[in-house]
């Protein structure tokens, strides 16, 4: 099962991940990603990988 997680020491709160994967990621009041359910449904795996590659801080992990 694929899941996503944020490396908090890297994340700079750009919020790009929330835009590219809004189905799974929202932003808290300070602009940092909130993930309700880390498991990624099969139809979202591709979008999750794209979001991880787009993260300028390399902070979003998909595994």
């Amino acid at each position: 099962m694929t899941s996503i997680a944020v490396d908090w020491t890297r994340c700079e709160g750009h919020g790009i991940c929330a835009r590219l994967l809004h189905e799974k990621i929202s932003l808290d009041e300070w602009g940092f990603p909130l993930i309700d359910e880390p498991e990624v449904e099969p139809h979202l795996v591709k979008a999750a990988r794209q979001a991880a590659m787009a993260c300028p801080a390399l902070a979003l992990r998909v595994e």
Partner: protein
Amino acid sequence: MTIIDNAHAGSVSSLGTPRLLAGVDQVGHVDAAHHRALHGDPVLRSRAWLLGAMREVNLLGRGGAAFPVATKLEAMPTGSSTAILVNGSEGEPASRKDRTLMTAVPHLVIDGALVAAHALDTQVITIAIHDPWSYESLVRAARERPDADAISVVRTRDGFVGGEIRAVINGLNAGVARPGGRRHLPHTHGMSGRPTFASNVETFAQIALLTGMGVADYARTGSPVEPGSSLVTLLGDVVRPGVLEVPNGTPLEMLLPGQADAPVLIGGYHGTWTRAAHDLPLTRSSLRAAGAPLGAGVIARPFPGTCVLSEVAAVSRWLAAESTGQCGPCFFGLPALADDMQAFADGTGSEAQAIRRLEQVRGRGACAHPDGAVQFMSSAITTLADDIRVHRLHGACGRPPSAVLPLPRSAR
């Protein structure tokens, strides 16, 4: 109760016969000769013996996480590439037990480190200390004896988060005492990259008692589920403020006479406020099961007729300032929460907003600091719900502020 006075530690006492603090009531500081007379030479045992004994007495780590020490020891490889790290950083401002132990009975700590090193067949031992008197005490003790040549005693940087074992290791390796993320665990990536058996100073002192006394004698006091004794720091309206050695299983009622349902803080500033402490026995397992883990061994009860909310707000402000600023939700969330806690004291707070923020900060950092701070604040909101209501109605409660929780001077 044996009452011991120790210049650097404030009041030091024990319920029953002191073990860790044996000899301290006569001399305050137990030097090498006196230590030998009390405990003999350290009893070195094989890894297998030590593992069995630790399991039989259910020895749990004394730093905060209360992890079974045998499980940690069993995961370690043996040989000269393995390191021993004795963590005496005691970053918790409310706790004095580790400093008391290090200033009063440094040789017991050294004995424990030597026992662990022998079991793991290594000579690489580091004792990491922040407090200057404790540091002096261990340096002097190591010089007093011929078997401590291999031990290096080092000073660590200040800080609550900096006292966490992974942060101590990073500090010693790279000079920056902050946590390196949840993936860097000391048993695989520790001191200078070595596999490291790391635990709190009191854990090592307990290990020395265990091999010195043997399982049967060690288990003669304490609770059947957790034999032996523990050091705790008592603050405020308690049987005797200061550091106390207590048999495990002692009813908390004995430490907190009177006032059965007053709010009590258990564990420290990553700990839990509760009104149900009175009925519990002091074992790590029962306190954990009750949702109020013993943590750093702090038990604090504000005096009746004082304002606890204002003190909760002050500690929350300090917790926010202790964020090392690496992780956004911790760095931005804790100051916002400290504002929320101040607002409760000012009578303007919103529970809904605070609870929403607490949920946004919990679990979202590279170390346990935000989770611990959230535990402190959320349990305060639940436990002090009546006080929050009174403050909201009247703008304040009119009582003098509680002042039992110490903070480093800069934070007040």
